[in-house]
C-alpha cells in the first residue's frame, strides 16, 4: 500500500492573499507550536493534491510512502492530534540495525496507550529524497503526544538511542521533521483503510 504526504513550508514574504487561497484550495493541517523542522503545514495525502500555481507561495516536500505496518485502535477517531515524524536513517547503517529500529518503533504502541492509531512507512520516492522513514500517530489529546509519548521511559530509555548522538547505536540523522496538527478525523484510518 502506498500514498503520498507533503510538508509545506511558506516562502519568506509570501503574499497573504495567496496563502489564504492556498489554504482554501487544499486540506492542510496547520502545524502547532513546538513542531520542528517541517515547515508550516502537512498535506496528509488522503485529499485532493495541491493544485499547481502555488510554487511562489510555498515549498512542497513531497514523499512517497510504502507502508511497513500500522494499526487502528479507533477507526472512528474524530480527533484531535495527528503527528508525523519524517527521518533519515544514515546510509551506512547496517540492515540488522535498521530492522531492529523499525521493530522498536512499532513496539511503542504496546507501551504507550495514548497512541490511538499509527503507521510506519518507508519513504520510497521521489528519487533523491533525503527522508527514509515516516512514523505517524494519532492521539485523542495534545498531552497524549507531549506527555504520554514524550515522557514514556520506553521512548527516552530505549527508542531515543537510535536518534541520540551520544549513543553508539545511533543510526538516525539529527535533522528530522517532527510536526503535528489538529484534526477532526482519522487520516490513518483513511490511509490504512
Amino acid at each position, binding site marked *: 500500500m502506498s500514498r503520498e504526504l507533503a510538508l509545506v513550508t511558506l516562502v519568506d514574504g509570501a503574499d497573504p492573499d495567496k496563502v489564504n487561497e492556498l489554504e482554501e484550495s487544499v486540506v492542510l493541517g496547520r502545524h502547532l507550536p513546538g513542531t520542528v523542522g517541517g515547515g508550516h503545514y502537512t498535506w496528509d495525502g488522503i485529499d485532493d493534491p495541491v493544485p499547481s500555481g502555488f510554487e511562489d507561495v510555498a515549498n512542497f516536500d513531497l514523499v512517497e510512502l510504502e507502508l511497513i505496518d500500522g494499526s487502528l485502535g479507533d477507526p472512528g477517531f474524530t480527533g484531535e492530534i495527528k503527528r508525523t515524524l519524517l527521518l533519515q536513517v544514515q546510509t551506512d547503517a547496517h540492515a540488522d540495525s535498521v530492522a531492529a529500529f523499525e521493530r522498536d518503533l512499532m513496539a511503542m504502541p504496546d507501551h504507550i496507550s495514548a497512541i490511538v492509531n499509527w503507521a510506519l512507512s518507508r519513504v520510497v520516492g521521489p528519487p533523491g529524497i533525503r527522508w527514509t522513514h515516516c512514523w505517524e500517530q494519532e492521539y485523542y489529546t495534545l498531552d497524549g503526544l507531549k506527555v504520554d509519548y514524550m515522557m514514556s*521511559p520506553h521512548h527516552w530509555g530505549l527508542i531515543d538511542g537510535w536518534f541520540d*548522538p551520544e549513543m553508539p547505536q545511533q543510526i538516525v540523522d*539529527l535533522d528530522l521533521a517532527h510536526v503535528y496538527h489538529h484534526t477532526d478525523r482519522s487520516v490513518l484510518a483513511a490511509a490504512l483503510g
Partner: protein
Amino acid sequence: MIGKIHILDELTVEPGRLDAVRQLMTEVYMAGAVERGMALEQTWLSPPVELYDQPNNLVYLWSVPDAAAWWAMRGAAGRDPSVGEFWAEMDALCVERQRRFLVDDPPIGEGR
C-alpha cells in the same frame, strides 16, 4: 512517576589508553555535561589495576533529576555538534562502548 535517572557509560578501553580516556573525559566532556544538567556520581575501574595487554573498563555513572531533565540534556547534546565529535574521538580509544539508562526498580505489580 519516575524520579532520578542514572546514566551509565561503560567504556572498554584499548590497552595503554586509560589516561587518554580519563583526560578526554575530564578536559573535554565534563564541563559540557554539567552544563547540560548531568551530575557525575561515581567512576569505576575494572579490573582494579591497569592491564597492559588487555582492555580495562572505565565506568562513569551520571544522573539527571527526572525525565524532563533527561530531555533537556538530550536536546542540548543534539544541538551541539561537538558532543558527537567528542564521542567519535572517544570511540577511537575504545574497543567498545555502551550507555545505559537506569531507574529505581518498581515494586512487584507496579512495573512499567
